[in-house]
């Protein structure tokens, strides 16, 4: 074979592989970028303003953590063709099944409220009233699903994922010192020593990286997309790419606030946007747009995670490939959770701060259960066959899960007893 033929063959092979990846990718990238939701953006902005670039190394460490957990959901979904809620019912009986389903429903709804808080706060900066934001968001999310095609929903969601990368140009616009970032951020360090405050920030960053809805969402999305066992390698790359981007976005947010707002107390991402607007209008505006997008991405995934889970367990039609009249209950739950969460934000004097704290506590009641079930299900040779966890995978995933459980539990305790770690 001559050199031209070889080059052409390689070109065709790479092109074919790329096409295949683009067809299979989606759930991993969407779930990972949606992980940088409104609450996540606030956490990263506060991390940067409090510690500058010094905790970037910790965010980088979260890449394999997020990947290993979500990769397991891909395998489980592709092999069993079941969502996580149904898999728990089937594997562990109705007690654990109902516990997981009801807890998921509650956590998702509370998380959805926090996403609406983020979105309304972001658009308030542009003088858009919260009522218009809630109605607009519900309409766009309704439009995304009524097409009756998973593919359409996924492509629109990927566009919103691309908007999430807005923080990257933001970081370049504030002209950070690359040598400072590398010197302070890459080598593990604890500025001011390992004290209670830094411990709280580490816990908060872990808490935003792995959320229970992510496990349920990605597994159900893999099933809805009809991914097969042969697609697992590509889905792994999809999840890895998503993990990379979620960490990249987090790092760039820390760079923005660490460069411009270091030393200023930041309580919310909206506040960070307003502060940034005083210094650089464009960066502040981009941050606000990013905050809205983050809340929106979170909302589309969280509401779907609930609808899929309930549909699986009750045996109703539960796919984005169905039209509303073909899967009325699936869409009824989707819109019910969405609209009710939006309405709560509009109620004057609603306990929004308490809801935000309560999410962390309730999420911690579900997260360990969801992760432990995930590992146990992946060790079931009868179901998983050659895709069951190997010994190294079990060691890595068990270590990660135990770490997440310990840190997220401490985070929840610090939310219940705020003075405990101060």
């Amino acid at each position, binding site marked *: 074979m001559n050199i031209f033929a070889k080059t052409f063959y390689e070109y065709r092979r790479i092109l074919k592989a790329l096409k295949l990846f683009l067809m299979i990718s989606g759930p991993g990238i969407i779930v990972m970028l949606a992980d940088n939701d409104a609450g996540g953006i606030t956490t990263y902005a506060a991390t940067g303003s409090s510690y500058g670039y010094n905790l970037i190394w910790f965010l980088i460490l979260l890449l394999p953590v997020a990947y290993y957990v979500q990769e397991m959901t891909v395998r489980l979904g592709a092999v069993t063709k079941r969502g996580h809620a149904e898999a728990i*019912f*089937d*594997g*562990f*009986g*109705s007690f*654990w*099944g109902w516990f997981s389903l009801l807890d998921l429903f509650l956590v998702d709804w509370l998380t959805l409220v926090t996403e609406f808080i983020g979105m309304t706060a972001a658009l308030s900066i542009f003088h858009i009233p919260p009522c218009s934001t809630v109605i607009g968001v519900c309409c766009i999310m309704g439009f995304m699903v009524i097409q009756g095609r998973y593919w359409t929903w996924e492509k629109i969601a990927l566009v919103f994922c691309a908007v999430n990368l807005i923080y990257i140009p933001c970081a370049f616009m504030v002209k950070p010192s690359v040598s400072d970032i590398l010197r302070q951020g890459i080598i593990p360090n604890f500025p001011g020593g390992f004290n209670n405050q830094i411990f709280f920030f580490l816990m908060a960053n872990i808490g935003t990286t792995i959320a229970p809805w992510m496990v349920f969402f990605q597994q159900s999305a893999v099933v809805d997309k009809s991914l097969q066992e042969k697609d697992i390698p590509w889905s792994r790359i999809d999840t890895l790419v998503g993990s990379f981007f979620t960490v990249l976005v987090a790092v760039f947010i820390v760079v923005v606030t660490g460069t411009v707002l270091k030393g200023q107390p930041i309580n919310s991402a909206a506040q960070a946007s307003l502060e940034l607007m005083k210094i650089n209008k464009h960066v502040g505006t981009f941050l606000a747009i990013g905050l809205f997008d983050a809340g929106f991405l979170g909302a589309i995934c969280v509401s779907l995670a609930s609808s899929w889970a309930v549909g699986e*367990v*009750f045996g109703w039609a539960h796919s984005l490939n169905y039209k509303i*009249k073909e899967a*009325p*209950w699936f869409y*009824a739950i989707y819109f019910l959770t969405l609209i009710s969460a939006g309405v709560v934000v509009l109620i004057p004097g609603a306990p929004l701060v308490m809801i935000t704290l309560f999410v962390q*506590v309730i999420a*911690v*009641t579900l997260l*360990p*259960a969801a992760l*432990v079930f995930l590992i*146990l*299900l992946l060790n*079931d040779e*009868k179901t998983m066959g050659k895709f069951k966890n190997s010994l190294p995978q079990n060691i890595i995933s068990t270590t990660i899960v135990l770490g997440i*459980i310990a840190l997220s*539990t401490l985070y*929840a*305790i610090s939310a*219940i*007893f705020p003075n405990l770690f101060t």
Partner: protein
Amino acid sequence: MILQLRILMRQYRRFFEGRFRKIHEINKKYARPRLVVNKSTAISLLLLRLYLLFLVGLLIFKFIMTLRGK
């Protein structure tokens, strides 16, 4: 449109009539866990129950402290 709405309403009514029956069916369907409970699975589930009891205990403690105004 009105016809579709009527069909939808009828479906919803039927659902609410049979909701308890459906839950009973689900309980019956998943009454026996399919996963073989070996020693490690049993220990994991026991630890999970203890962990959840610990969290519930913490929440109750916080609730009582809040009621007492501490």
